[in-house]
């Protein structure tokens, strides 16, 4: 573990869990206390997206939109046009799922600092099934010029990310998960938009993860260590702009990469890293994530295991790239 990052030691057994969306809720309220121009709007999911804290603290700065995600984000663009810093929240399946063109034109091309909050992202939404398991949001947002894409690994980081977003002059997207997620960072762990964190250092393989999968990457690294493989774990909270320097420095050292995300590998973190790696290195690479298919109903743990989104699949992929690297 990288001691400079003040991380929670996950090797000592069970770690405290908290929903990533809780961190967002706290961060937004705090951002509202710091800056009177921070405002919020929600499409009928105020409690669920944890915007409730802000709405109760600052009712005059909160707007209930109703179930209208196109209106949600374009009202956000209008609020920003008049000098506000609007956070607009819904489930990721609906925003940015339904209102992509409005985001493209009125937020990104128009370059207004609207903060799009996509909660309940990923397959861990569970029993709700494929319609609500948003797996394409990162790809949808990453492709847009001017957009910043953030996927925190836990609630503590989500709070810091939310505060950073309130100060960032660009359009932002933040991806939140519903389920309680292991808390692996602390209030002392650094956060800045665009900066990757090297959580664990190693020389044999680089594990690059984002969002909820960073905990799984840490578990995988722990097991790999016991098997004699030194895995370097890089947590990517900001998928765009990507911290290319940190990633390339690691990959040039290890020559082998495994990415891990709770979303489609096409266009997601896996896609982003593949683009970077193939243009700059000869490293061997595997991607852990959803492989061009939809999810289904089930418990979060069942689904993650069933679709190969866990530490075990990261571990197996790491063995694969390390072996292949040796063959070359």
């Amino acid at each position: 573990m990288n001691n400079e990052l003040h991380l929670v030691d996950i090797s000592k057994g069970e770690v405290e869990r908290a929903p990533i969306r809780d961190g967002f809720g706290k961060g937004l309220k705090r951002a509202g206390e710091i800056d009177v121009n921070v405002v919020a709007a929600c499409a009928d999911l105020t409690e669920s997206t944890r915007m409730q804290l802000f709405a109760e603290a600052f009712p005059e700065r909160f707007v209930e939109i109703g179930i209208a995600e196109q209106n949600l984000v374009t009202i956000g663009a209008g609020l920003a046009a008049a000098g506000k810093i609007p956070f607009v929240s819904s489930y990721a399946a609906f925003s940015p799922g339904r209102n992509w063109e409005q985001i493209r034109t009125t937020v990104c091309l128009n370059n207004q600092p609207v903060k799009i909050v996509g909660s309940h992202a990923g397959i861990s939404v569970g029993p709700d099934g494929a319609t609500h398991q948003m797996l394409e949001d990162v790809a949808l947002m990453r492709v847009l010029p001017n957009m910043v894409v953030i996927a925190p690994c836990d609630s503590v980081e989500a709070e810091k990310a939310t505060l950073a977003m309130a100060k960032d002059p660009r359009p932002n997207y933040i991806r939140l998960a519903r389920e309680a997620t292991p808390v692996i960072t602390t209030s002392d762990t650094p956060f800045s938009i665009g900066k990757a964190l090297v959580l664990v250092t190693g020389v044999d393989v680089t594990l690059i993860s984002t969002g909820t999968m960073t905990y799984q990457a840490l578990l995988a690294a722990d097991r790999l260590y016991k098997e004699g493989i030194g895995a370097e774990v890089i947590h990517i909270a900001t998928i765009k702009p990507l911290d290319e320097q940190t990633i390339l420095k690691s990959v040039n050292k290890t020559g082998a990469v495994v990415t891990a995300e709770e979303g489609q590998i096409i266009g997601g973190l896996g896609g982003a890293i593949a683009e970077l790696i193939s243009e700059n290195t000869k490293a061997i690479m595997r991607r852990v994530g959803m492989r061009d298919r939809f999810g289904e109903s089930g418990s979060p743990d069942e689904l993650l295991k069933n679709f190969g989104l866990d530490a075990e699949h990261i571990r197996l992929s790491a063995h694969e790239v390390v072996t292949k690297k040796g063959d070359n």
Partner: protein
Amino acid sequence: MPHNYSIEQLDIIANDIREDIIRMLEHAGSGHSAGPLGLADIFTALYFEVLKHNPKDPDWEERDILILSNGHCVPVRYATMSRAGYFDRDELMTLRKLGSRLQGHPERQRLPGLETTSGPLGCGLSQACGIRLAHKMDNISHRWIYVVIGDGETDEGNVWEAAMFAGSNRLSNIIAIIDRNNIQIDGPTESVLPLEDYRAKWEAFGWHVIEIDGNNIEEVIDACAMAKAIVEKPVAIIAHTVPGKGVDFMEYDFHWHGSPPNHQQAIKALKELRTLGGKIRSEHE
């Protein structure tokens, strides 16, 4: 800027704007003719009488906001802004050319004085709601937000999400000017996707509705003044206009929605505009 033009003077300005639109579109070789020509009187009324604005200080904090939701009609805005003193008329001929500030569809960051980036339809009214909400939070009640919307544009669901929101939240200071020219790309609005009973739809969504002849500048000015007096709800001005207004072979013909005139057609159109359809002698024939 001071607004002290007579209606006769404004009519002449509107006609000059139409001539500029024809020249711009012919030079660009692509673009929309019918909508911009039909909107020339409304834009003249807005920039030369109704709006509180300052061409020398486009970001003036006290200005009224004009959102062009149907971005494809932007040639009329460029031509009017130029006449109002925002930029030199020579620049109009750069429309749709590489490097121009006058993009085919308006981009806020390219040209001072544009409030939003638009083109994909249906987003202007929501942004007006957002701006109004921000003004309310800041206790601002003396600024108005005008949104020009195409009638065909209101096929879009986003428009009705915003209409329902503005109506139910009783957002005053929003004046939607709907260009009821009855055409869209595939044909007459009432055969593509019928909009009537149009007035009743807006009223049912909580709006105060005023219907006018949108090619009568005096009616446009009066309607805006009336709209500003309505303080308890948003106002929709359904402005009945003639698409292609002023150019006989373009008027009412939906084929001119998305086409520019060629050189011969432009000469013919300019001749007609210069004589106000043969009613006056051209000063510059």
